[in-house]
């Protein structure tokens, strides 16, 4: 912030760090190393092609693609979004071409551009999760699977797997059993104790967790008396939810210090990334911020080395969980 702040003791005992020397590499468990911690929020970056018109998306740690389902999905009717104070609600309904078309059209583009790819998968049943993981076995360029077991845009809240420990365990077991790459469970904060769910996912074989998915919200147009979303309720994202994301990451990291966490929720600046890492995240996803600025993820990535150097840190990973009492 102010110069006074920067020149404080945390700069280290005279050891000046050159931003060019900052090491951004992060490890998410033994089997997944990313060249940098900046990834994308599933559903906010499509499969990379659109944003690649603005910058070389290969620069990112990985692209987490929009959740893919077994069958193609048309998604929900419009309106699918509503702006809220410092956030937005969405109810897209997992519109996607289905795993077959995705493997035929989207993955080849990602491969030809050498983009490390994390595939988000979503199913109605544990069998569907298993099927998706099977289809992704040995798919080229896929470095991890993110099992989205927490999409709030479903009719029956009971099928939100991440709302219950047992359901989480079952779904993740199916995926982890067949997957050839590390599996991350994408969790919702709309639960009484997210660290229990994270524990269940880990026990079931997840390498780590991705938190947070959107919070279930609703908005009503007082003029028309209609919900602002055709689906009535939808998922809240954006800066408004960042305090929830920091808390969720913190709770999970306290309960499971070894569990890799991909943190997200309202991130739009370098400081937001550092905040989530201090809370316990290993990598950080940029979501809604990409809507506000298609270059958000790149700008954050480019700003990280100098922020770290100025603050006397040679790596980002040394800050993981390093908040002070």
């Amino acid at each position, binding site marked *: 912030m102010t110069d006074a702040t920067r020149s404080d003791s945390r700069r280290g005992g005279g050891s000046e760090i050159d931003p060019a020397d900052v090491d951004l590499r992060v490890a998410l468990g033994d089997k997944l190393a990313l060249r940098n911690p900046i990834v994308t929020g599933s559903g906010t970056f499509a499969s990379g092609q659109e944003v690649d018109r603005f910058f070389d998306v290969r620069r990112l740690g990985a692209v987490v693609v929009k959740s893919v389902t077994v069958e193609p999905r048309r*998604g929900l009717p419009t*309106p699918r979004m509503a702006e809220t104070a410092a956030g937005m609600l969405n109810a897209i309904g997992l519109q996607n071409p289905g795993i077959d078309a995705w493997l035929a059209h989207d993955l080849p583009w990602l491969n030809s551009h050498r983009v490390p790819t994390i595939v988000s998968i979503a199913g109605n049943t544990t069998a569907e999760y298993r099927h998706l993981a099977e289809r992704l076995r040995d798919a080229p360029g896929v470095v991890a699977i993110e099992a989205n077991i927490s999409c709030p845009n479903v009719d029956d809240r009971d099928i939100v797997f991440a709302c219950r420990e047992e359901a989480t365990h079952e779904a993740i077991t199916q995926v982890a059993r067949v997957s050839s790459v590390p599996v991350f469970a994408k969790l919702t904060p709309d639960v009484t104790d997210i660290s229990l769910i994270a524990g269940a996912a880990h026990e079931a074989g997840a390498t780590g967790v991705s938190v947070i998915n959107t919070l279930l919200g609703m908005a009503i147009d007082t003029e028309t008396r209609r919900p602002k979303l055709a689906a009535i309720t939808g998922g809240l994202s954006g800066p408004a939810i960042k305090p929830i994301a920091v808390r969720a990451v913190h709770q999970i990291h306290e309960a499971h210090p070894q569990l890799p966490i991909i943190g997200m929720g309202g991130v739009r600046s370098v400081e937001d990334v550092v905040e989530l890492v201090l809370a316990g995240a290993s990598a950080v996803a940029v979501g809604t911020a*990409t*809507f506000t*600025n298609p270059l958000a993820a790149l700008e954050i990535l480019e700003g990280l080395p100098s922020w770290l150097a100025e603050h006397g840190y040679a790596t980002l990973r040394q800050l993981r969980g390093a908040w002070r009492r």
Partner: protein
Amino acid sequence: MSSIVSRGSSTTVQGRGEGPLRARCEVLAYRKLGGYHSLTFVAPEMAERAQPGQFVAVAVEAREATLRRPFSIYSVSQHGPWAGTVEIIFDVVGPGTRWLATRSKHHVVDLVGPLGKPFPLPAQPVSCLLVGGGYGAAPLLYLAQALAQQSLRVDMLLGAATQERIFNAIEAKRLSASAQFTTEDGSLGVEGVVTDVMPRMIEAAGTGVIYACGPMAMLAAVSAAAKELDVPCQVAVEEEMACGTGVCWTCVLPYRRKDGVVNLRACTDGPVFNGARVAWSAVGTSAMANAEDGRGRGRRGGRAEPAP
């Protein structure tokens, strides 16, 4: 580094050699144009890449606003002392447009564009009818210039609730072989809606293609009338957009393809679509004017333009 930084009149541009880019653009002029507002930005790279029917997404610094606001490009100039400018026309309807209306010369505004697919220009030398509702006239006037450059006949038909909501009638007359206007209250031209006049104009001009832009309900009616008269019709639609760049899937429009109805993205697959193919009856409730309460959201031309 994938970001090109070029400074000229406070314009910092980020993007790649082609396609859309992001730029912080200085305001060259703010004007009131009838019931509408106009902002002209210094945006040379965008001006160079823009085509009629495309839009820009504007970052508004209204309190708590998270998302950009999309606006059709009304005009571009690629030369002159300011190297290149992009102009938008807008109606004040909420916090974002209210903020925009407070911008003036030398303010800097963050734009992303040009976005979306432009109007396809006719491959054949046909006569073109441009049908606009409210501020939907803006991109059509830009299109009219491009068609005129190809020496094609252009007729203009603009409708709105009242005379003040007809955008730039003078320009419409100047750029067309014939121009007609409809207003709900009869304050300008014919009392009624555009589809009341459209068949006669098509007959008189021997229209070979229709381009339309305006409220969704108007586009539906124009598309239906065009289909009946067997004239191809390209419509530029308006759907609520979270990203404008094709990554979020909020802006979809049901569109008929051989394999059935698919939800296409208005921002990337559109905003220009073949009107005959849009599954109008399946368009989201809020996008269509609501007969019961006389209004709807996501309607080009704004709230003042009635459904025809």
